[in-house]
């Protein structure tokens, strides 16, 4: 057993640091460091740079054009990227659509779709949830009528993150009505420019537009865009959900947020003079979450070494999702508390790095409060934390 890195791993880490140091655009890093919102172009610019290096699809095996990194290398890559203020790689292509396509797709589908994901020239979105199918995803009702060489798809998807940026959507649809709702579902790839696709924004409580509702009305989808077998889509969807949960622990990003919280505490004034960091009551709260984060990181590494040994993450992924999101939420809450009254103002110009007005209060205040409000969604998406607890109770504890 060994928690420290081997010389090869250290060399790898050095290589990642060097690359990021040389290629990460300054303006993007500044935005990430300040917790400002990124637009589509910011993400794509960085992801294309990674793509050129062959690192955008960093979890992929070599046979599909990925770097073929070990679990530890991937982990190091994520932690270092976050530490150096890289934007989060949008998961919808490389972490979601990609693995499903290379695992269950045809050769033709692989040739057609994988390069755009690797190079980050195509933005994907995830069309799973529907108004009546949230936690109970299998009750989805979007209907795909079999028309011989194509399907006609009609229905409504909701909460579709970045559908307004997306070129393609991977989508769960119903292709037959069966006793068990899970069995009649198919996995389709839909071109967002198809006639009949309409994207409507849904504003989030803290003022951002990230998710949408997507109306599908008689959208013609060629049969060649069906992944795997018709009616077998649930299997592929579940495969993907488990991947998503491990990702949702987001250790690298959370460690960076912890560091940032400490910077904020060190620069904020305490009530009685000195810095907030010197306030024992606030510091106690900070340490509480830091200790949870330490434990989460090692838990993640334990699960990752199981995965490296060839075991599936299984329900343990739910544990990472629950704690990972709770800790990230708590950190953002403390950052918001740290700024005191300056958590009140809403300063969208600063959040979006638009306009020239300087924010009222310290710079980090404008983003800290907004971030806290935004992060409430982390325990809801990717399978809510209640659903994850249900999975652990049922599948691990057999209750």
């Amino acid at each position, binding site marked *: 057993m060994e928690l420290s890195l081997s010389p090869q791993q250290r060399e790898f880490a050095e290589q990642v640091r060097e690359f990021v140091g040389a290629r990460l655009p300054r303006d993007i890093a500044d935005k990430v460091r300040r917790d400002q919102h990124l637009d589509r172009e910011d993400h794509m610019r960085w992801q294309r740079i990674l793509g050129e290096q062959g690192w955008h699809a960093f979890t992929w095996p070599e046979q599909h054009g990925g770097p073929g990194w070990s679990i530890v290398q991937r982990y190091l890559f994520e932690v270092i990227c976050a530490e150096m203020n890289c934007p989060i790689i949008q998961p919808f292509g490389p972490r979601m659509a990609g693995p499903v396509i290379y695992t269950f797709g045809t050769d033709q589908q692989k040739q057609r779709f994988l390069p755009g994901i690797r190079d980050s020239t195509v933005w994907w979105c995830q069309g799973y*949830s529907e108004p*009546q199918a*949230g*936690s*109970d995803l299998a*009750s989805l009702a979007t209907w795909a009528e079999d028309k011989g060489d194509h399907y006609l798809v009609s229905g409504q998807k*909701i*909460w579709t993150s970045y559908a307004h940026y997306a070129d393609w959507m991977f989508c769960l649809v119903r292709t037959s009505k069966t006793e068990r709702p899970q069995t009649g579902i198919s996995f389709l790839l839909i071109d967002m420019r198809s006639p009949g696709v309409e994207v409507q924004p*849904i*504003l*989030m*409580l*803290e*003022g951002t537009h990230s*998710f949408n509702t997507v109306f599908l009305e008689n959208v013609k989808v060629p049969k060649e865009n069906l992944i795997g077998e018709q009616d077998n889509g649930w299997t592929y969807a579940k495969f993907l959900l488990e991947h998503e949960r491990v990702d949702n622990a987001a250790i690298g990003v959370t460690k960076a947020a912890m560091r940032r919280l400490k910077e904020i505490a060190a620069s*904020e*004034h*305490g*009530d*009685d*003079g000195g810095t*907030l960091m010197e*306030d024992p*009551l*606030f510091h106690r709260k900070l340490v509480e979450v830091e200790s949870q984060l330490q434990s989460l990181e090692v838990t993640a590494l334990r699960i990752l070494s199981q995965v490296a040994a060839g075991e599936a993450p299984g329900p343990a992924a739910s544990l990472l999702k629950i704690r990972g999101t709770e800790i990230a939420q708590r950190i953002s809450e403390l950052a*918001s*508390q740290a700024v*005191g*009254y*300056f*958590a*009140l*103002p*809403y*300063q*969208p110009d600063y959040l979006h790095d638009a306009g020239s007005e300087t924010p*009222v*209060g*310290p710079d980090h205040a404008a983003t800290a*409060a*907004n971030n*806290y*409000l935004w992060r*409430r*969604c982390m*325990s*809801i*998406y990717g399978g*809510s*934390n*209640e659903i994850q*607890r*249900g999975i652990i109770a049922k599948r691990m504890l057999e209750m």
Partner: protein
Amino acid sequence: MDLSFSEEQNMLQESVSRLVRDHYSFQRRQQRLEDGEDLWLRFAELGWLAVPFGEDQGGIGGGAVDVGIVMEGIGRALAVEPYLPHMLASQLLARLAPEPLRDRYLSPALSGDCRLALAFIEAGGRYCPWFCATAASESSDGYQINGAKDLVPGGQSADAYLVIARSHGDTRDRQGLSLFLVEREHPGLQVRRLRTNDAAGAVQLTFENLQLDAGARLGDADQVWPELEHTLDLGAVYQAWEAVGAMAALSEVTLDYLKTRKQFGRPLGANQALQHRMVDLFIAVEEARSSALCAALAMDTDDADERRRNVSLSKIAVDRCARLVGQEAVQLHGAMGVTDELSVGHYFKRLTAIIASFGDSEWHARRIHRLDTASLSSSSQPARSQSWN
């Protein structure tokens, strides 16, 4: 002992409930925000602006509980009318203003014709309530003010501000604070409008060589801290009642959602795991209600330490409940809870702002700590206890 409302209080509560019911559906609230309208004059007509003032001043002689009854309605309604800042400022005005100033501003404040706000927050002091870098230097015929009040909640529509400024001492002294009335249009005053997460809005005030004559001062020079402290306690109490109204409404909305939203072929509320969480919300609302009441009653005592202790205990309790109810209500609504479309997110944002105002739990814990440790040594040094707060 009797903890039930009086006849008058029941009537006030009825009038508050009626206005909230008839005019503050979430949709109408949102519409008014968009149109930039408010119901301030209705507040005035209903006598709400006059609640805590003596009859000789044109008021109805109510106390903190009575203002609390209005505040609870404001919380439930998610009303953004700046009732709380206006009441704090006008109560200070009534108590401290020299006669000409009071004659000029008080009755318009009670009739809704003049809106006031209290400017006491500066960047750099966090929750230290006596932190003040804004300087009031004596000049030949009055004062010259320089500095900034970086956040004045509810200050967007104010016609005049009551401004805390330092006439003596260092930024962190309790002594040396004075209070001034500054009209919005006064030369040398810059007013920057700020949006806030809770949509109530605020302003930042900047003073540049702003000249005031001596008559613009309220209360004694350098000595305004005890009055300010009392006023900030009052703010915490009023706000606690607002939080109770918001929490009660939010937990009702959540209960309703759990009963109607179906997943897996049954209502969400059929899951025992969620039932228990809903029960915790219910308990939190009752706890907060009791704490708010206790703090309001404590505003009537002459024992300042007793008041401090009760207000601080209440702030800590209400914050804890508000955090739980706000976060859980969002969570139990799933993705709907993080949208701008339902009232849920807006209640959550208002509760979050309340938690962040008038001192956080740590500030209040420290104040109680000072009281507890002072009473430890008070037997040997009784004279010192006065200076501890």
